[in-house]
């Protein structure tokens, strides 16, 4: 009798261990992509590194709650954004009122006005530096930045971003719309400054 009950247990343990190892390998294989997003959700590299370690520690502890076949990268990012909020890293609250942002073509217009009337796609890399972009992104208020980073940097769909941040998809769309405009404004400030 004891033989028959012990056998499935042993098999179960072996299956469990195999699934866990596979889960851990899959999660680790995604770490570069997760870091890419994490790095811009927080202010510094140190914070991003801490957050990554906390995220993976929690993910490895609660691996059973991941449903195989669903999006593991989104699942990891959901843990990460929750930890980021829980740990109070998002000190800066988004003010209730935002300055009215400029239109979608604001950056184009600013570059055009300050560069002999020409401002096509070749001008982008010519006029903007990597630091302009990184600095401008850091200036976007958190609620907007989270969405911009997930969609434009992390290549998540609106639906994935909504799930990760636990907000309605309509909110993702409106924050993305405004966040991108705020980002362009900040890049224009950085690239062109007060001229034009």
């Amino acid at each position, binding site marked *: 009798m004891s033989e028959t009950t012990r056998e499935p247990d042993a098999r179960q343990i072996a299956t469990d261990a195999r699934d866990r190892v596979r889960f851990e390998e899959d999660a680790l294989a995604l770490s570069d992509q997760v870091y890419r997003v994490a790095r811009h959700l927080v202010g510094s590299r140190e914070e991003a590194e801490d957050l990554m370690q906390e995220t993976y*520690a929690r993910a490895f502890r609660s691996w059973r709650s991941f449903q195989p076949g669903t999006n593991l990268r989104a699942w990891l990012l959901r843990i990460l954004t929750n930890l980021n909020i829980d740990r109070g890293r998002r000190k800066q609250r988004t003010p209730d009122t935002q300055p009215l942002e400029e239109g979608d073509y604001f950056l184009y217009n600013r570059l055009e006005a300050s560069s002999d009337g020409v401002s096509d796609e070749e001008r982008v890399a010519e006029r903007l530096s990597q630091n*302009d972009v990184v600095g401008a992104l850091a200036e976007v208020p958190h609620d907007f930045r989270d969405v911009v980073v997930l969609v434009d940097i992390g290549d998540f769909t609106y639906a994935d971003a909504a799930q990760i941040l636990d907000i309605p998809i309509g909110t993702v769309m409106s924050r993305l719309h405004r966040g*991108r405009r705020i980002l362009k404004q900040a890049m224009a400030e950085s690239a062109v400054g007060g001229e034009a």
Partner: protein
Amino acid sequence: MTAVDPCAHCEEMMQPYMDRVLTDVERAEAESHLDECTYCRKRYRFEEALRQFVHQAVVEPMPVELKTKLADLRTPLQ
């Protein structure tokens, strides 16, 4: 019915177009306008290049030590 300024409409559709969330009909509309309008096409090219640039500009490789630390968090094998 008020006549819609096609370029203003195109500007409104531009980001959703690049996000590939427009319906087939909307996408066809946007593309046919972009085909015939230099003003919008220039801006569209700029916006595409800008997205690409932003996407690349923020890449910061993950530190190797962090990768090791994450691997160390794995459950030890029995």
